[in-house]
């Protein structure tokens, strides 16, 4: 057996580090702020060290942790000096960045191959692995925008977006209050509740259901977002019109999914309820609604994204001077792209929290379902 392991990522990383050494310096000669020798030395020592360790036959956990720490520390040293040096990165810079990226990839492969008994560590890994991937998207974004000197207007680097986000929290908070707390929450609750109520009604009256279901199925595939201008005309510029758009958008997915869910209970269980002489409402609340819960939560999840999109897009058609959609459309007009991205970050964050809350509710209410029981 050979002493060195066969891992194409590590060998390629080694080649890239050597190529980087051959094509030094890291920044072109005109760069205003050069790297200090000690920083450059640490970058290379960390990357080369990590590469060598990943090639030796050591315990996988040790290798993974070393790669995680060294590759990312080296990358941090590398890109934190880019501000002020836009467009000055040389080939060596990208060689060593690519080497670090390959090492991170190797680290992720090792981590995903690990078989771990402990539940806590396993769930930690479930967070760490995607986090590495996400971090590298940001790192590459930062390195490419600053390294190649891409114009700020086209794509601002994430560090600039972060700075903008931190410096304009009051504005962002006001926008969020207008769009999320007023329009989205109200529209979401009313839309979902009315969709649910109509579904129960349709369940009670078979004729109504047969007529409604094909129409509702069709409606949920339609570009309902197009009603936004009409709603703005009817209900004015303030949040009421946005809430109306959200209601219309969330109504049909809820209706269709609830009707589908109400037929999910098996005939055996229904027969059992019949033999207990339970009436319609007892069967509904004790058997059919619990059985429909996975479908209902599916609709709630779909709607959490739809509601946010509906409210923001509706604001393009007219708003008071506050709101996420308003901010996006005016700041893009003023070419403040970093503010737009900050608003998008907030929107993505709010959307994820919204989705997360719905998922937690689902876990609590449908703990009996096979997909939540775990194996």
């Amino acid at each position: 057996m050979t002493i060195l392991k066969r891992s194409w990522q590590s060998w390629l990383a080694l080649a890239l580090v050597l190529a980087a050494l051959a094509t030094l310096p890291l920044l072109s000669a005109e760069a205003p702020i050069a790297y200090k020798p000690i920083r450059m030395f640490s970058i290379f020592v960390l990357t080369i060290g990590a590469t060598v360790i990943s090639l030796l036959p050591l315990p996988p956990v040790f290798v993974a942790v070393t790669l995680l720490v060294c590759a990312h520390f080296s990358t941090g040293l590398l890109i934190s000096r880019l501000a002020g040096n836009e467009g000055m990165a040389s080939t060596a810079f990208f060689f060593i960045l690519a080497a670090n990226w390959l090492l991170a990839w190797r680290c992720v492969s090792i981590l995903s191959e690990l078989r771990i008994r402990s539940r806590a560590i396993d769930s930690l890994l479930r967070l760490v692995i995607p986090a590495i991937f996400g971090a590298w998207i940001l790192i590459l974004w930062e390195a490419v925008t600053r390294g190649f000197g891409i114009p700020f207007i086209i794509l601002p680097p994430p560090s600039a977006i972060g700075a903008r986000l931190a410096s304009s929290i009051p504005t962002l908070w006001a926008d969020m209050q207008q769009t999320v707390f007023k329009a989205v929450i109200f529209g979401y609750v009313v839309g979902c509740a009315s969709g649910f109520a109509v579904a129960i009604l349709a369940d009670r009256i078979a004729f109504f259901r047969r007529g409604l279901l094909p129409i509702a199925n069709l409606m949920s595939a339609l570009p309902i977002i197009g009603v936004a201008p009409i709603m703005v005309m009817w209900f004015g510029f303030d949040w009421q019109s946005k809430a109306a758009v959200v209601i219309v958008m969330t109504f049909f997915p809820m209706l269709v999914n609830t009707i589908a869910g109400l037929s999910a209970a098996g005939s055996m269980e229904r027969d059992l309820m019949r033999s207990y002489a339970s009436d319609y409402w007892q069967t509904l609340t004790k058997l059919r609604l619990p059985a429909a819960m996975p479908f209902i939560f599916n609709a709630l999840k779909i709607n959490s994204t739809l509601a946010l999109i509906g409210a923001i897009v509706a604001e393009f058609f007219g708003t008071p001077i506050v709101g996420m959609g308003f901010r996006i459309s005016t700041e893009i007009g003023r070419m403040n792209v970093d503010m737009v991205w900050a608003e998008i970050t907030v929107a993505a964050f709010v959307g994820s929290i919204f989705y997360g809350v719905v998922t937690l509710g689902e876990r609590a209410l449908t703990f009996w379902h096979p997909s939540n029981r775990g194996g």
Partner: protein
Amino acid sequence: MGREKLIQHRIMPVAVIVLVIIAIWYVGAYFMNAPFQRDLDRRANVTSTAIEFLEKTMSQPKPTLPAPHQVASNVFENTFLRKVTSNRSLVYHAWVTLSSTAVGFTLGTLLGILIAVGIVHVKALDRSLMPWIIASQMVPILAIAPMVIVVLGAVNITGLLPKALISTYLSFFPVAVGMVKGLRSPELIQLDLMRTYNASVAQTFWKLRVPASVPFLFTSMKVAIAASLVGAIVGELPTGAVAGIGSKLLAGAYYSQTIDIWAALIAGSVLAALLVAIVALVGKLVERAMGAKPERSLG
């Protein structure tokens, strides 16, 4: 199902509900347009009988809620009576939207399938990429569609491609998720059989996983094509109202041409229904050609 039963259980209820909706629409049109009409009458010093007044509320040029027949005649006029190349023809606008929808849908489907194949075969991708694919849908990309268009326009990428990119983003997700499910749908016993045949990974993929995933592919493609149409329409909002159903909506909103807005909405809906129907039909034909049972369908 017999023919009588089909009429009784399918067509009758739908027809009744559609009629009820149209009736509600007419009543709504009367009540929403009445205040403005009363205003007009008072200013012109006209006193009209109830029937005349009703007729007037149904024939305003810029009503708050246009009556169904106004929308229908607008759609008919702009679809069949105008030249296809005319700027007012709905067919022309629908075609513009359709072309970017089709490009975006194709790209999105290919991307989705590619991602799904990667996720099924590379474990590192499965554990690092899958959570981000789900998270990517939390970014209300539709809300920044206008920005994407403006920014790409600033680097001289204009026309069809930016809109198509938004459609791609919206449509790759359902396909990727559906295909991951589909490619993993073969049961363990079937995979074991492939192992006993000493089948390679590629052979297992082409002869077992791909055929098993086809129903999932078409189910998710139906969702994806509806999503790409929405993406194309919203993508047309900021292009300075040049062409497309989205620009028609925006122009209608600017000039308060309510009938035009409704007509554009109807055109978009018809387009969506047609596209979904086409995908469903192709799916059925492919499944039949592959020897699936005719009734089999996935929700």
